[in-house]
């Protein structure tokens, strides 16, 4: 079993018991972390494994949320309403991703980032203008419907469904990273000119990565819309787009679990420091500054780096060769 699978199973095991210890940790909080965690994993697929900076990820999260929410409000009673609305949300995010990515992908570096930012502002503008998004009010009281006959209006049922959706989404991201396609993405990230000279149309790989990332962000957005029964302008705002950058960097860009940890930290701080109001932003900002100054690889990234360094120092000692052989796998985790 790889380290990734072990850690993942431990996390899922812990998450399974959460509803039994409501005094210790709120299931709603864990659901929020799962939504944002998956959102950050989607973002990390681009930044960490493809080398693209996007400021449009809220547009994917939000547009999926709006589509899923609006469809649930109309067709939530239908037995297939929830999976259909969920799928439509993901498809909408992928489509928006294809449009934004298609326009931006030919640009490099900061220009790419700026184009995604400009285009995501258009999505925000549309969310304000279009009638069915509810404008300033957003969509409220979204019914959760049912899945395979399970009534999702129960928080406990919703919790386990969210956990299952999260696990599937997370494993999917891990698979994309560790797939034949993911291998080419890594090559593109490492040295795009070389990848081109080997005959790969790098723009097509980047665009496909962008669309997949957008779809997963949308998947997280659809989950979030159902969990909180609410979609608001905040979900498509630049603020949310920058928050996901922060989560990813804080936890460790290009690591599998970093974005989850980052999301947990940011969501946790926002929850537990809610009493200090807007100061939360300042506190998170300070943590971010400390992070980029002293832990440039993020928390998980620094941890893996330390382990690898220690393993390499032990390289001369034969007893530790097994540990060292595992090092690349640890890095990938």
């Amino acid at each position, binding site marked *: 079993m790889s380290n990734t699978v072990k850690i993942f199973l431990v996390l899922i095991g812990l998450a399974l018991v959460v509803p039994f210890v409501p005094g210790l940790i709120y299931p709603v909080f864990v659901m929020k972390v799962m939504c944002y965690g998956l959102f950050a994993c989607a973002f990390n697929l681009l930044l960490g494994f493809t080398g693209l900076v996007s400021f449009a990820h809220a547009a994917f999260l939000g547009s999926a949320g709006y589509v899923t929410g609006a469809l649930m409000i109309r067709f939530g009673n239908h037995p297939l309403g929830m999976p259909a609305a969920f799928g439509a949300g993901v498809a909408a995010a992928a489509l928006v991703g294809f449009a934004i990515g298609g326009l931006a992908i030919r640009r490099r570096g900061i220009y790419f980032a700026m184009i995604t930012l400009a285009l995501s502002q258009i999505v925000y503008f549309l969310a304000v203008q279009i009638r069915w998004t509810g404008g300033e009010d957003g969509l409220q009281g979204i019914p959760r419907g049912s899945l395979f006959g399970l009534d999702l209006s129960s928080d406990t049922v919703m919790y386990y469904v969210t956990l299952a959706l999260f696990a599937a989404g997370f494993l999917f991201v891990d698979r994309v990273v560790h797939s*034949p396609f993911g*291998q080419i993405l890594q090559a593109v990230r*490492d040295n795009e*000119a*070389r990848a081109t*000279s*080997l*005959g790969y149309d*790098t723009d097509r*790989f980047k665009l496909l990565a962008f669309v997949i990332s957008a779809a997963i962000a949308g998947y997280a957005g659809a989950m979030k819309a159902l969990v909180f029964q609410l979609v608001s302008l905040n979900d498509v705002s630049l603020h949310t787009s920058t928050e996901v950058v922060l989560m990813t960097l804080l936890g460790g860009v290009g690591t599998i679990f970093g974005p989850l940890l980052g999301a947990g930290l940011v969501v946790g701080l926002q929850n537990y420091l809610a009493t200090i109001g807007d100061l939360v932003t300042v506190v998170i900002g300070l943590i971010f500054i400390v992070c980029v100054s002293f832990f440039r690889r993020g928390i998980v990234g620094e941890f893996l780096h330390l382990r690898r360094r220690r393993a390499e120092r032990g390289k001369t000692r034969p007893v530790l060769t097994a540990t060292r052989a595992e090092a690349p796998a640890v890095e990938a985790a």
Partner: protein
Amino acid sequence: MAEHALVTEGLTKAFGGFTAVRGVDFVVRRHAIHALIGPNGAGKTTFFNLLTKVHTPTGGRILYEGTDITHESSAAIARRGIVRSFQISATFPHMSVRDNVRVALQRRLGTQYWFWRSIRSLSVLDDRAMALLTDVGLADYAETNAADLSYGRKRTLEIATTLALDPPLLLLDEPTQGMALDDVDRIKRLIRRIAVGRTILMVEHNMSVVADLCDTITVLQRGEILAEGSYEAVSADPGVKAAYLGGGHA
């Protein structure tokens, strides 16, 4: 089959007002080892960049095996079988040496867009990758990250990666630049070996390498062809002597 592997007609590249390559008519015979030499700034790398469409020519044509490829994309040209190495070593630094070669092999597999399959499906390429690495003497470093290789080995890896595509036409930009003497000899033997059944066009500054390997030499100066022919003919050319004495050592 066309008579020549590669032909350029009036190939020109202007960067703004500055013309780096000017009206180059150039022919590479099939299965030749052809050297492109000339002082620094002569336009050799630019010429390679034109052939591989890193830059778009501002004039002229490029024919590969008789087909006009002037307007094809970089990746499409590579898929036709023209594969280059870079003057500054080009590896995938955060991937293992074996994975570097495997990325090149993967194109043949046709699974490059399969994001749903496990990476384990690529292990069918491992034997071929290891064979290539053994061939160039890098088998012991298969699991090392490319970033951790010595300079000479990085360049060797680059050649192994290029060979993985089994390209009919190889463009090597200064393959021995900055190498220690042992490494130069190793690369020289390697090039001679891989040249069998292939066409090689190489930019090279080391005259002993050129003299030993290449059957035809083209001298470029200020973007234009100054002389062309065998090593003996070119080194006896008064224009070439003047250029090299005036332009510093090439």
